[in-house]
């Protein structure tokens, strides 16, 4: 496959590994964080950790939109699914994530009121075809996904579809990166920055990290050669004592991002404080539907009672999302918390750190 096979080439990968080893030789421990959950999955899927020298440590960050969505939000989605006349539509990842007492998957078995969609436009079409139902779309995701949800709201308005709603929990990556370095819980020497978020917001969005905190950033693609090249560039910056934003994913990501997508976001959403599971409220890190489009805001338009959320006992997803702890340090990992009986979201999400450890063999 074009643009994919070349980036999975064994010889190129092995040569990059050798360059990383040479660059890291004799250095102190270098701690790099991959922010995006898809990078975590790629690192595990290709066995990259095992190829790196001992003095390079990779931490997984909070870039898993499913994992960082608070339990209360999932409880609300489930509550909607239990209401008569409501159809909840969702991307697949959300289906198995545990709320305080249940999950959307279990509610499907009970109520048959949850549908998995590949695109938010599919949810909009369901609303168009079923005017007798209120169709609620579970709006989770970062800057990669939010523009398509914005587009669906604009399309709904244009077509006069009045039974389409979004339960909005979109979040933004740069503010949580700032929160991580401000918290000083860990010393991060470099960030592997998300690839697809960056196609929207541009590589310039990370300049503040390099400039204000002196931490190198490299925007990376998702194939193993991309990730290895990004690691090489970061280690090289650390050895040279510089802090720059470099763009490894040059053929996809531009400095200024995607103006059309950014305009969609600006039109439909406004920035707000947002709660990140396990991290707490991060200022200016979420998106809220603007007043102008409040007719499509599920929380504003559909009343539902939700019991107070309960965080599962013993779950350390929060610390795992911040990179402070690894799944192997969780007492529930592989015992009480497994993919079939998940306690926290990190075990269920297709980008969850615990899911990666479990599926591909951690450590």
């Amino acid at each position, binding site marked *: 496959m074009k643009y994919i096979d070349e980036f999975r080439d064994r010889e190129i990968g092995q040569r990059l590994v050798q360059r990383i080893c040479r660059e890291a030789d004799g250095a102190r421990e270098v701690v790099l964080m991959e922010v995006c959950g898809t990078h975590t999955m790629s690192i595990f899927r290709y066995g990259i950790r095992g190829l790196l020298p001992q003095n390079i440590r990779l931490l997984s960050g909070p870039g898993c939109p499913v994992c960082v969505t608070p339990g209360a939000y999932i409880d609300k989605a489930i509550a909607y699914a239990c209401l008569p006349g409501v159809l909840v539509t969702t991307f697949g990842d959300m289906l198995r994530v545990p709320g305080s007492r249940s999950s959307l998957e279990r509610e499907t078995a009970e109520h048959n009121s949850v549908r998995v969609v590949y695109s938010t436009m599919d949810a909009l079409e369901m609303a168009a075809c079923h005017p007798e139902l209120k169709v609620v779309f579970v709006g989770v995701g970062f800057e990669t996904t939010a523009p398509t949800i914005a587009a669906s709201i604009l399309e709904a308005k244009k077509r006069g579809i009045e039974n389409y709603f979004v339960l909005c929990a979109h979040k933004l990556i740069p503010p949580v990166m700032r929160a991580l370095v401000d918290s000083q819980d860990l010393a991060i020497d470099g960030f592997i920055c998300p690839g697809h978020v960056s196609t929207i917001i541009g590589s310039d969005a990370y300049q503040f990290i390099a400039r204000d905190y002196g931490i190198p950033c490299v925007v990376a693609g998702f194939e193993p050669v991309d990730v290895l090249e990004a690691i090489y560039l970061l280690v090289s910056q650390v050895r040279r004592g510089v802090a720059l934003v470099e763009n490894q994913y040059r053929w996809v990501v531009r400095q200024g991002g995607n103006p059309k997508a950014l305009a969609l976001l600006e039109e439909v959403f406004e920035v707000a404080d947002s709660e990140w599971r396990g991290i707490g409220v991060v200022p200016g890190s979420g998106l809220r539907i603007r007043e102008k489009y409040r007719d499509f805001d599920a929380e504003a338009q559909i009343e539902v009672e939700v019991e107070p959320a309960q965080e599962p006992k013993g779950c350390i997803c929060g610390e795992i999302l911040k990179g402070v702890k690894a799944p192997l340090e969780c007492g529930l990992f592989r015992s009480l918390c497994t993919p079939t009986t998940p306690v926290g979201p990190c075990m269920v999400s297709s980008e969850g750190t615990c899911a990666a450890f*479990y599926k591909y063999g951690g450590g």
Partner: protein
Amino acid sequence: MKAKEQILLAHGSGGKLTHELIENLFLRKFFNPILAPLADAALLEAKGVRLAFTTDSYVVKPLFFPGGDIGRLAVFGTVNDLSVVGAQPLFLSCSLIIEQGLDYATLERIVDSIQKAAQEAGVNVVTGDTKVVERGNVDRLYVNTSGVGLVADGVYLSVERIEVGDKIVLSGTIGDHGIAVLSEREGFGFHSEIASDCAPLNGLISRMLQASRRIKFMRDPTRGGLATTLNEIVAGADFGILIEEERIPVREEVKSICELLGLDPFYIANEGKVVAVVHPEDAEAVCQVMWGHELGHQAAVIGEVVAEPRGKVFLRTAIGGTRLVDMLVGDQLPRIC
């Protein structure tokens, strides 16, 4: 599972939950030594004659998909379950549960397909049943087939024969069936040419068994995909399996669709492929006879049985790293980003 819990779709996906349900409920309640191996077919012995007996239900949606239909699937699925335990398939039963309102033309088309498939596979439908249920109580048509076959003298396929050093042989490309059905069902509108690989394996397997008496075990990787089947082989065993990503044949179109949707071909259903565990000295000869058969042109040695880690399947990745290959958990779900 506790009494108040419910059966989820994931319990039928062929992955972990399916296995848990089978072991914790069905095996526990029905337990007997014939059932215990949980093989693709039960091996029965009476008066010196060895028979294989299997059953399967088919609920595929849509009924017709590129490369096949529910009728064809129902015949070949059962024929293949008999073939992989070393039996020559002979007789099938065919039970239909029909939704009120299904048009006769559709039913006739499927029955024609069943007959044609039975002829291709060299089996006869010798008994059956028909039920019609009210509209909405079944999704158009469900089919169950059971099959009986004869196991020849000297053919003994069992997990217990597997030894460290044995090679893993795969008969061809993976993921074709699942992607063909998914494309049709979801109406993706891809201009893809992926057809289901739905096919009877008895001819291919017969040649393989003639080529070598040191084929230890076989399985056809259906629901849950190649990864789940390999995990079933190593479950509880004192060996593991190491496979090479670069050696596993996957069609470009299947790879592309999987990339687009975030699916992993290792976990996608196949309906015309066989995985065989073969003595290392015979692996090449087995591959050669497979290459000469229309269903085995892309047969390949994809890995081997290893001493460690026990009970696990590992993959050497495209760039030379290694990682675990786990069993499928639920259905693969389309992702957010």
